[in-house]
């Protein structure tokens, strides 16, 4: 007996990844990122004398690949439902013996996988190419690598939810504001519970902590961030499901 995931979700994930990977905008972004990393990596060949310069390059590279991964995730997730509705491809999809939530989960998972693939495929060359001349905490690196996939999960869920509430342009603008700017927004309400209610993928970014050589978060601090990411993702997906199930197509 094939599971619902194998039968209903996985084919949608595969098709979405395939389609998204062939689009020029994603390819251009990926080529741009690889070119930029090549330039940064050349520092190893030329050689760096000042350790601070190495740290700056490492910080810049990691910031760029994380930013790129979030941008790809956001772009892929934001176009899914509006494109399906505009091109009317949602009809033959939903004419199969599947639930609407399967489509939603498949689209979300595909956007996550696109971002994750870009992140890890660029992280490895950065790790190998950019010189590390100062002391960096391995524990912080592990936390960075475990929190980043969670941050991408949140980033994929945000535009998926917003495109079910608002027109595509507005949804995209709001999603960019949340994904890139939520950290600045919540500073105005510091100490208020809202800080944990607003989905904030930037809060899970440990790059600065890592490149500044700061010790890892406590286990409870790390767990709180993991739980917050799960809470944001689950809430957004559940709300999206409610909206999508009720929607007349």
């Amino acid at each position, binding site marked *: 007996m094939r599971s619902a995931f194998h039968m209903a979700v996985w084919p949608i994930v595969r098709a979405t990844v395939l389609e998204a990977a062939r689009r020029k905008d994603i390819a251009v972004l990926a080529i741009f990122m690889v070119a930029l990393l090549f330039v940064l990596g050349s520092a190893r060949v030329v050689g760096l004398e000042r350790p601070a310069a190495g740290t700056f390059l490492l910080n810049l590279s990691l910031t760029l690949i994380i930013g790129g991964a979030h941008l790809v995730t956001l772009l892929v997730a934001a176009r899914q439902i509006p494109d399906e509705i505009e091109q009317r491809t949602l009809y033959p999809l939903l004419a199969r013996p599947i639930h609407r939530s399967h489509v939603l989960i498949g689209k979300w998972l595909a956007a996550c996988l696109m971002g994750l693939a870009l992140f890890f495929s660029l992280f490895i060359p950065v790790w190998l190419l950019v010189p590390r001349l100062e002391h960096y905490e391995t524990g912080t690196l592990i936390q960075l690598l475990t929190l980043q996939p969670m941050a991408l999960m949140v980033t994929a869920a945000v535009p998926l939810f917003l495109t079910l509430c608002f027109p595509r342009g507005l949804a995209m603008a709001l999603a960019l504001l949340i994904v890139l700017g939520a950290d600045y927004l919540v500073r105005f309400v510091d100490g208020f519970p809202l800080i944990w209610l607003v989905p904030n993928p930037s809060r899970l970014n440990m790059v600065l902590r890592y490149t500044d050589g700061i010790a890892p978060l406590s286990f409870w601090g790390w767990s709180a961030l993991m739980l917050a990411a799960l809470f944001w993702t689950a809430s957004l997906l559940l709300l999206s499901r409610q909206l999508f199930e009720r929607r*007349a197509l």
Partner: protein
Amino acid sequence: MAKPIEIEELSVSYGRGRKRQRVVHDVTFSIESGECVGFIGVNGAGKSTTIKALMGFIYADAGRASMFGNDAGHPDGRRQVGYLPEVALYYPFMRAEELLALYGALSGMTRAQLRTRIPEVLQLVGLAGRGRDLLREFSKGMQQRLGIAQALIAEPSLLVLDEVSAGLDPMGRFELRELLKKLHQAGKTIFFSSHELSEVESLCDRVILIDQGRIKKEVTQSELKQIGSEQSLESFFIEAIRGAVAS
């Protein structure tokens, strides 16, 4: 045994608040297994809306639509259904065979089944050898043929086809008619909406005429033949819509 399609006093509205407008009013009909039924009416008559409500894409205000005994929208009802939407621009960056593999997999087909079935359906709809082509290279007519292929991929026992011949050239329409005839002879239940009266005349066991969201008339094949011998089918339907024909 449950009928492939049963619609009872179905009413559907669009819009919200003051702008809410009822577009389908108390529509009732059913389709028996093995029947080929045409659903005809002018633009905006409510054909596509009725079909969308049947497929569970939109929700009814009142009444019931079911397929094989399952309420509209329930996945089990769609297990034996092949559906062609009115217009669809399939994913431009996918290949034809990838698209069919996607829909086949979602219908529960295995990879081995798909390997043999995909070339078969592409052959059936006249797209043999085009499986590796990207869909952005497909013309409107080819997209429609592909749409028919995706509806047939899982060998459904019921076909629901919305504006089946839209975008096809005369040759394409002829080939489609022949294909639908073959499928009907093979025992498939077919329910399709169309503007093409010649299609309806040559294929259907029964025709349901809808106008302004209400069923105006149901005509059997023998009645169709009789009408055809006395007057043109076109003038008969125009009169039916205008209410000149006594029901």
